[in-house]
């Protein structure tokens, strides 16, 4: 192929890869939009052209040697390198071309694409903004900038830009997912659902629908996830996986009977994976069907006896039902079978902590930490046990060390904040600031934990910042409507604000929840064995 033909092809293909071509690739995990688009770009070029790209590259390099200031050649070489995934090499050619011809919108867009693919988001954004300034109606640049913005966490801008190029967005599952993700982040669930709905019946097939379902589940939109998984149960190439994901969504939505039905049907069709049995075990646990729970976990363990996960699941499930006697037996067996596992010692420690056998729990968690200092459950368990034993100095040290080691573990940070909050002494401003910072960080990492919002709201109440408190407490109550204390403090807040009617409503709701809690008291609980 002549050089002219190559250049023309690239010019045509570059825009096309973003919107016009199909892919039949099937990823088992949701790829990032950037990776996906890049992969498509690469595949498209290879599939569509018979020409040897190395030959084309050589021809372009030769042309540039003769005409080093030819912006067209430079841009084209950059493009051909980019299609070969030689992004690092491509960028300087694009840049040289743009230096010679700054108004070349195509080349700037290509440069931005390469930057995006290289993860240089700020540079990509800058160039795309220049493109859009020159050519405000450049839909491709809008699409790209929307994707870049989504990667940058600027969900509002991403949503605005992508919404303006829906015809382009709807052509690719990855771009649909990007816009849906932006909407979810913005709390615009209905719009996110509408976007994901586009995937159903999409020419990209069941994989796109599956990934859409997983995206919905990621944002705890389990109804949508279920709606995505259900229609592809018979068409998805891996029915065990889709059934498991469907059941998981149902479980997460607390629809345990449906989850059980899905799993049993899947097992009936011969898709009885260990994960399916384990989830079935948890489903029975939630339905208080302990004999069936035991059988399901036993099946999972027998299918994969070398996998400690299912012993741990069984132990945790039993402990969750306050069946500590059996739970501790399972934990001991797990430790025996996996003596070098930090996770099994953590399980043992957690059961012992629940049984208020604090010395035993301390030993188990210490061993777990020794075996794997990077195990957050072990580190947290050790700190909690020390706290329960009133070894406050040791607990403080463990929490502080854990906060350093697991800065991205929202739950750990929350527990550390609770430890500091519950200290009996009077706190100074620095301690208050530390607690607030831990809670804020925990919230930033996982804003779905009602406890975090509750504690932040409570702190704001104490500072008489009623507006902030109201927001946090309402969030806590929304995330966990059965969190009785959120309603108690909301009632107090409303009362202080003179909003008596709302206060009374929250008070009544709180009382109702407390009565329910009283009903669910463990009738065999020994006195004085409650722990923080």
């Amino acid at each position, binding site marked *: 192929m002549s050089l002219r033909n190559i250049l023309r092809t690239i010019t045509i293909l570059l825009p096309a890869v973003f919107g016009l071509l199909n892919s039949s690739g099937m990823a088992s995990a949701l790829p990032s939009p950037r990776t996906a688009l890049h992969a498509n770009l690469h595949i498209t070029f290879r599939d569509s052209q018979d020409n040897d790209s190395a030959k084309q590259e050589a021809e372009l390099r030769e042309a540039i040697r003769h005409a080093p200031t030819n912006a067209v050649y430079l841009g084209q070489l950059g493009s051909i390198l980019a299609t070969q995934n030689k992004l690092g090499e491509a960028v300087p050619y694009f840049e040289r071309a743009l230096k010679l011809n700054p108004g070349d919108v195509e080349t700037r867009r290509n440069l931005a694409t390469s930057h995006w693919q290289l993860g240089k988001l700020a540079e990509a954004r800058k160039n795309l903004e220049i493109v859009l300034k020159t050519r405000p109606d450049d839909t491709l640049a809008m699409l790209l900038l929307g994707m870049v913005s989504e990667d940058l966490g600027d969900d509002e801008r991403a949503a605005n830009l992508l919404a303006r190029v829906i015809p382009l967005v709807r052509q690719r599952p990855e771009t649909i997912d990007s816009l849906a993700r932006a909407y979810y982040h913005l709390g615009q669930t209905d719009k996110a659902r509408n976007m994901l709905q586009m995937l159903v019946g999409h020419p990209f097939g069941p994989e796109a629908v599956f990934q859409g379902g997983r995206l919905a589940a990621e944002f705890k939109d389990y109804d949508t996830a279920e709606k995505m998984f259900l229609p592809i149960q018979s068409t998805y190439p891996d029915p065990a996986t889709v059934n498991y994901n469907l059941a998981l969504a149902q479980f997460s939505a607390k629809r345990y009977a449906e989850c059980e039905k899905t799993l049993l049907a899947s097992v009936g069709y011969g898709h009885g994976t260990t994960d399916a049995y384990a989830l079935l075990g948890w489903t029975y646990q939630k339905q208080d069907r302990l004999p069936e729970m035991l059988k399901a976990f036993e099946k999972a363990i027998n299918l994969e006896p070398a996998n400690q996960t299912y012993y741990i699941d069984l132990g945790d499930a039993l402990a969750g039902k306050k069946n500590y006697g059996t739970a501790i037996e399972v934990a001991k067996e797990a430790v025996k079978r996996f003596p070098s596992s930090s996770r099994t010692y953590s399980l043992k420690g957690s059961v012992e902590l629940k049984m*208020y056998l604090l010395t035993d729990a301390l030993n188990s968690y210490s061993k777990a930490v020794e075996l794997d200092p990077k195990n957050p459950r072990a580190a947290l368990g050790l700190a909690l046990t020390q706290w329960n*034993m009133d070894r406050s100095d040791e607990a403080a040290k463990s929490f502080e060390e854990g906060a350093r080691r697991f800065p991205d573990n929202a739950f750990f940070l929350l527990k550390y904040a609770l430890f500091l909050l519950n200290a009996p002494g009077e706190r100074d401003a620095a301690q208050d600031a530390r607690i607030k910072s831990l809670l804020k960080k925990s919230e930033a990492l996982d804003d779905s934990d009602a406890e975090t919002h509750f504690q932040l709201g409570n702190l704001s109440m104490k500072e008489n910042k009623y507006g902030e408190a109201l927001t946090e407490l309402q969030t806590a109550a929304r995330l966990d409507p059965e969190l009785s204390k959120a309603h108690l403090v909301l009632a107090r807040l409303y009362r202080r604000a003179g909003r008596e009617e709302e206060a009374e409503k929250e008070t009544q709701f709180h009382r109702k929840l407390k009565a329910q809690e009283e009903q669910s008291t463990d*009738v065999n609980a020994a006195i004085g064995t409650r722990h923080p």
Partner: protein
Amino acid sequence: MSVFSRWRYRLLLPKTAALVCLVIPPCLLTLAASGSSVEIFTDVTDAAGITWKQFSGESPDRFMIEAASGGVAFVDYDGDGLLDIFLVNGGETPKGKSPGPVGNALYHNLGNGKFEDVAAGAGVDRLPFYGMGVAAADYDNDGFPDLYVTGTPRAALFHNNGDGTFTDVTEKAGVKNEGRWSACAVWFDYDRDGYLDLLVCNYTQLSFENPKVCEFNGIRTYCDQKVYGGMPLTLYHNNGNGTFTDVSHSSGVDKFIGRALGAVAIDVDDDGWPDLFVARDASPNLLLINKHDGTFMDRGDEAEISFDENGVAKAGMGVDAGDVLGKGHPGFVVTNFNDEFHSLFISQGKYPFEDWTTRSHLASLTKSYVGWGAHFLDYDNDGNLDLAIINGHLNQVIEMSRGDVKYKQPLLLLRNNGQGVLENMRASAGEAFQKGYSGRGLAVGDYDNDGATDLIFTCLNSRPVLLHNNVGAGNSWIGFQLVGTKSNRDAIGAKLILQAGNRKLVRWITGGSSYLSSHDKRVLFGLGKQAPESIDLQIRWPSGETQSLSGLKPRNYHFIREPSQK
């Protein structure tokens, strides 16, 4: 003016004792100030001749009640001007039998530091039920305090005959509280008709037939409180003719179902009508405000005393009320379980109350303790209300798990610096404060009339501990015994505002308080080192009458009768 120092109590003491009181104070002051080895309280149980032992009926069945009884009252049953001591025994359980009869004790104060048990002769030694607590008051205004004894499955009212004996009038009076496990009882005149009414705190309905089974590390122990369903409160209206009417329903108190253990009657909102603070075990505390029409409304939510800030209904056991900050508004102490911290709520005359548990240091001082009896007292007579709390765990095997929490726990004497910050006086309080106890009931009173508040507390399956206050009389003081005429004779519900120089002190004659216990109904004001020559007092009687008195002399108990007759 109907004031007369008819009883100069110190003169009732033997000459040597009186001499000691007159001579020792400056010396004591110096010693106390220098932190010398003079202990604040001395255990005088042996010297007093108190040998009675509580019997809980502890058994392998681990009925919760075995760990909860122990009422005690400071009460001058014979009107000789000396506080006597009444002790309520527990009882047997199906597998917890006593080798001998299980009896109460009524220790008559002989005035020489000795006491003599006269329970049998007085007719109050035996109960036909398992005993819990006692509330002493003169319900029929005949000048002699009567005894209401709580327990399960019923309670009893002993009318004081005025001759050193009592008659069980439970059936006739209609206050049996049948079928309920009652804990505290509070005498107070909720309708201000001049007759004391009776609130009974009920915990649950206990059956010795079906023990609840709970284990800790394979060892049988008491179950969590929440295993026991709560009960409504009982309110009896005194008809003024020796009988009572159960007004639990019409007053609205029967809708408050929970595990009530302690209560104090005090005028929370300063409207002249007695209100109630009810401490409940893992049930929300109640603040029952008197609506003046025979009904009560719970304002616990508004006061923010029902639950802690994490929505936990703490294990409220004992409760007392007093002006902790010296601003004329009542604060409340509530004893709770270990790790919950005993609570201190301060009223500033409006809702919500302020939670001073941490700010007062009470949280750090009580973290490891399960608290029971608690009472404010100005042990050093400096004018600030201090705090005594008796503790003790229920779970005999708790030490298997926790190093910091002991089964036997100390008595706490917490000194108030006047700003509501408490300091543990353990180091100088005396030997009794170095030991551990299975403490339960706690009562305060000046049994030797030296102007210093003494203490007594009960212990499970042990003798009670009587503590003599050695330092209170080192500072100046003034005491009052009020006698109602239009009001109830004990003047429960009266508010006393004392002006001593620039200092104004407010005290109330409360009903109930602490845990299962009853106290000296006289009001003792600490005046500090330099009391003014003349002291003024304003009384708001339970009837609503007010009375002003001036030129009162310190270091005396003053006997004050309500001016107008009924």
